[in-house]
């Protein structure tokens, strides 16, 4: 085992890490936004809205993420061409990002739904009694309280997504793991580079988990 080759490869691997973090942050932001809309639909009194959202969540939670990523990469350009009649290459990054957002939205939806349901019913009554409309009640009163409560769960889910971003290797995107692996392969030291990548993933995920646990304690006290 010779780990000395890792140091000169660090800048290249950092580029991979930047890609991973970009996917993570945009995926979480988009996933939480879409997940919140889905949660509001699921809780709505309109049976059509709540059934559509329920079907969405159940579908995406029943298929592997890898399938969603490859499906988006191969099928979306095809669908776009069929719709517009032109070739519209969307690229690996965009297709992966959309796949993450839509897949994670199903999980974030359930977290947000539980968060909304944990706010006492009377809060909604009081907000309505002051003359607020549905949008104001949710935006000003219910969601701010719900998000505060569910921050630890959202972060926990984001840590899972951080690890799952490595699946983009399937469509050739250079994330951190892919960057490390390809460099190891070129130099002929794949084991050292994979061990290093594993340590990096472990360090980041584990310390983030510890932070979440501390945050959880602070929020519950």
């Amino acid at each position: 085992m010779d780990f000395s080759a890792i140091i000169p490869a660090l800048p290249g691997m950092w580029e991979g890490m930047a890609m991973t973090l970009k996917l993570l942050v945009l995926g979480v932001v988009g996933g939480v936004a879409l997940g919140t809309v889905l949660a509001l639909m699921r809780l709505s009194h309109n049976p059509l809205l709540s059934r559509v959202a329920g079907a969405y969540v159940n579908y995406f939670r029943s298929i592997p993420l890898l399938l969603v990523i490859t499906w988006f990469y191969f099928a979306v350009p095809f669908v776009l061409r069929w719709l517009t009649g032109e070739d519209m290459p969307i690229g690996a990054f965009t297709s992966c990002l959309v796949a993450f957002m839509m897949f994670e939205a199903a999980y974030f939806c359930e977290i947000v739904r539980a968060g909304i349901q944990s706010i006492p019913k009377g809060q909604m009554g009081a907000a309505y009694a002051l003359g607020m409309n549905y949008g104001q009640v949710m935006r000003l009163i219910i969601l701010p309280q719900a998000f505060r409560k569910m921050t630890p769960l959202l972060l926990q889910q984001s840590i899972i997504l951080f690890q799952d971003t490595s699946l983009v290797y399937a469509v050739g995107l250079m994330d951190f793991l892919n960057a490390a692996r390809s460099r190891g392969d070129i130099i002929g030291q794949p084991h050292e580079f994979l061990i290093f990548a594993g340590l990096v993933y472990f360090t980041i995920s584990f310390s983030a988990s510890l932070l979440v646990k501390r945050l959880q304690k602070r929020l519950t006290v």
Partner: protein
Amino acid sequence: MISIKNVSKWYGEFQVLTDCTTEVTKGEVVVVCGPSGSGKSTLIKCVNALEPFQKGDIVVDGTSIADPKTDLPKLRSRVGMVFQHFELFPHLSITENLTIAQMKVLGRSKEEATDKGLKLLDRVGLKAHAHKYPGQLSGGQQQRVAIARALAMDPIVMLFDEPTSALDPEMVNEVLDVMVQLAQEGMTMMCVTHEMGFARKVANRVIFMDRGQIVEDCHKEEFFGNVDARSDRAKQFLAKILQH
């Protein structure tokens, strides 16, 4: 001001309100009492459409609640409501609790809303707590803030849904004092409460409900003064709560 006409409500098969009819005129203070489960909270929540009802109508200041064309948020913004569990917004400071609806619903400027909110906070004796959060106040203080929050909307009528029943006994009076003061200033009030002292002091009329029906609806003097003329159910109730 409030006209409740033949209101009936069901939860599935179970009928919670049966043919309730009564009026609250401008400047009047009406106390609604009765055993738990008698539908009094449900009735008062129907008045600002927080609870739907299936039959009858309620007209508030000329606006029909049963009419599907009625702008319910607008109607509710003119009807103040105080809840059993205060329902201050815990993520907002006391000042923000007092101003958020003024700004977002009535479109008042921040200065105007803050000015009005702080004046009302002073009136309920809590000016020093403006910067705090609801969790830092006692139950009685929170309820007084909740009253100020409702008043900040310049309501034409105030609804109270058991405002003192979640309070420690020593905090009941500070809330009742604010309510008495309001009543004496001529505010139209409909109060679900078991505080018979409050009813004796400021109520014009007392409504007694049992099993979803309005059993008694009479002037205070008649209700407390002529107990023998009351229904058996009201007599039992009065005997129980006036015993101690």
